[in-house]
């Protein structure tokens, strides 16, 4: 009886760790060299930029909303960020622009949802289309490319490593930790879960529900800004039409796989990190197993459904 209860407790509260471990096991059976540091750290590097976006998405979904602007916001901010860099020659100004643009994109979403009283799905669907259109117009179909003078120092932001740990992996871990602390150790985190769980009761407890929602969108926007800055550095050339393509889908999938309830109120940040890593591992494993790349989407789709089904069964 006791063993059974303990097991139940583990399987409900740590299910994302269990499935993560299981996936690692499968991966190492298919290819024993998978468990090497270079392959493992590469999963973090590959997942870092979308992973940072997924941190923002975690907050939005925990508060009972959705944000579809991710890919367009990243493309707009990264493209314009490169223009700022080329014009001013300052990486600092480029970073500040990206953070500021992300915050403003989030603020616009937040205001339309709270003051305009429009469903977040609709607001961010419209914003997604609009931002992509703006950056396409500004880029006139062509790419935004970092000029030769700043190429090396700008690229070094994401290309290097510290004691063998790639920079991108460090960024992802730091941002995950900060987001985790916000959600578990500050009252703002509790407010987010409360708003997503029962907005009515939250309001009657004195929680400024609208402000919480707007701040959640701004935090998400800030994450997109950081992601855009890193993407610009990593690629040094941003295609207006395709940069950040489907980032929102991957971010939502990571949050769902990580065990966050789509209706809001419940979720863990560490789960989202594991979710993004799992998506990456699946792709790596499929390359190793010579699965045709066109089938990646199919396998990912099936895995997402299985992960969420497993969570539903527990309820």
């Amino acid at each position, binding site marked *: *009886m006791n063993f059974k*209860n303990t097991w139940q407790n583990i399987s409900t509260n740590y299910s994302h760790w269990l499935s993560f471990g299981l996936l690692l096991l499968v991966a190492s059976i298919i290819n024993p060299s998978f468990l090497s540091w270079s392959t493992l750290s590469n999963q973090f590097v590959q997942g870092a930029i979308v992973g940072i976006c997924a941190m923002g998405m975690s907050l939005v979904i925990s508060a009972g909303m959705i944000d579809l602007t991710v890919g367009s916001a990243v493309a707009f901010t990264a493209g314009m960020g490169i223009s700022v860099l080329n014009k001013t020659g300052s990486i600092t100004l480029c970073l500040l622009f990206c953070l500021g643009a992300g915050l403003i994109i989030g603020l616009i979403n937040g205001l339309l949802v709270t003051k305009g009283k429009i469903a977040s799905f609709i607001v961010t669907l419209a914003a997604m289309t609009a931002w992509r259109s703006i950056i396409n117009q500004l880029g006139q179909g062509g790419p935004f490319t970092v000029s030769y003078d700043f190429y090396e120092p700008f690229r070094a932001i994401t290309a290097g490593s510290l004691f063998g740990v790639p920079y991108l992996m460090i960024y992802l871990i730091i941002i995950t930790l900060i987001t985790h*602390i916000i959600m578990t*150790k*500050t*009252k703002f985190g*509790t*407010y987010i*879960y*409360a708003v*997503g*769980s*029962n907005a*009515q*009761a*939250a*309001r*009657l*407890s*004195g*929680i*400024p529900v609208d402000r919480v929602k707007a701040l959640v969108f701004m935090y998400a926007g800030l994450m997109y800004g950081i992601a855009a800055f890193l993407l610009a550095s990593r690629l040094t050339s941003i295609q207006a039409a395709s940069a950040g393509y489907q980032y929102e889908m991957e971010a939502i999938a990571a949050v769902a796989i990580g065990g966050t*309830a789509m209706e809001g*109120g*419940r979720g863990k940040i560490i789960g989202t990190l594991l979710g993004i890593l799992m998506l990456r591992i699946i792709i790596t494993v499929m390359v190793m197993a010579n699965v045709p790349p066109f089938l990646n989407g199919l396998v990912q789709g099936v895995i997402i459904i299985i992960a969420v089904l497993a969570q539903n069964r527990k309820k």
Partner: protein
Amino acid sequence: MNLEMREISKSFGPVNALKSVSFTLGAGEIHGLLGENGAGKSTLMNILAGTFPPTSGEIFINDEAVHKMNPHKSASLGIRFIHQELNLCNDLRVYQNLFLGQELTKNGFVNKKEEIRRAQEVLDYMKTNIRADMLVSELETAQKQLVEIARALLFKSEIIIMDEPTTALNSHEIAKLFDIMRALKAEGVSFIYISHKMPEIFEICDKYTVLRDGGFIQTGEIKDIDEKQATELLIGKSFTHTNLKEGSTSSVTPEVLLSVSKLTGTSCKNISFDLHRGEVIVFTGLQGSGTDELATMLFGASPISSGSVMLHDNSLSHKNIKSVMKAGIAMVPKNRKERGIVPDLSIQQNCSLAYFTAKHDKPFISDPEERARFERNREKMEIRVGSAKDAITSLSGGNQQKVIIGKWLEIDADVYILDNPTQGIDVGAKFAIYELIHEIVRTGKAAIVFSSEFPEISQLADRCFVLYKGEVQGVLPYSELSEVKMMEYSTGAQ
């Protein structure tokens, strides 16, 4: 139809919700099922309705064993379960809700005309004033409860289970409901009636069965016991029917804490009163009399059209709820499930929410502090929990409500607004909450309670304000409090 449930047991994991309980019901009988929250009443009824199977035990209908009961089989046997929570779809019309899952069809299409006709027939029979083609979202809570009841009458029923059917109804509507029950009883329909309100049970029921802690305690004829005996049976200890106001010296002081003048909103107007330190004022009135809005207006949760509220001689801005809380007003809202608890948060987090918004100004929150906050309240109110980190939904209604009250005690307000604080909770917990309210005002605070139950009002009120059509129709000091007078004022008869 004769029903016998024989030695039913049910466990949920390690919890034994029912321990070998037997229950019998004859044709044309109204049977009161009594017990505190968590005693096993709902579990027993859910087994009868086929929601889940018993761990052991059997069900006999007309002396024939029924195996593998499920909701469909239960419904086809004529067993109808009217749930305590309203299970209606707000965006559908009344008739669509009534026929939900059992639509009348003609050539494969829904026969809307016939559905409306039959639905209206039942609604008229119940003397409701509800039109069958109204949207459920346009209805008042009381009317929704009537629609829920109408559902059971629409199809031929043998046994109707009613779980707290009168929580939102006023005495006039309750009387109508009882008339309908008596008429159906004469046709041989049986009822299982679950309620915490003793006077109702003694008015309508023929027999009673008492459960306590999942076990069978006693069954018999209602005429053989009285309310006091029944209460003793269900809480399991000698419960002296004391009135907390009797014999105790009043704690009311001359100092005015809160002064409300000519407060007007959309459904209540020109409300004026002075609340003194140490005083409990009760507001009462029928559904729609404006009491709901008055509670939320005082708390800054719904807009004020005109009038003023002074707290400690300072005018209160009512800018938002947080500013009202900081000024020193707390509110325990009504409808715990919809407006009180945050279901995904733990017990201790729920207990901390108000403190966070009104008092917490450090950058981080601390788990030990949160735990200590809850522990204080757990001891004070004897809240029964496993772990403070469990989900709040794992608690019984009474314990949930104590957590919510604890949440507001933590902001140390001067004025406590309690909107129907004992809605749907058992006698023991009710009494504990009454004692707590008296303790709050004895420590120099004041309380405004909204309630429609006379026994509750007589336990609490130093003064009782009765609203009728949004205005104060009469004020009764404790010495003049009587149910008759209250009714006269609230129906506008006086």
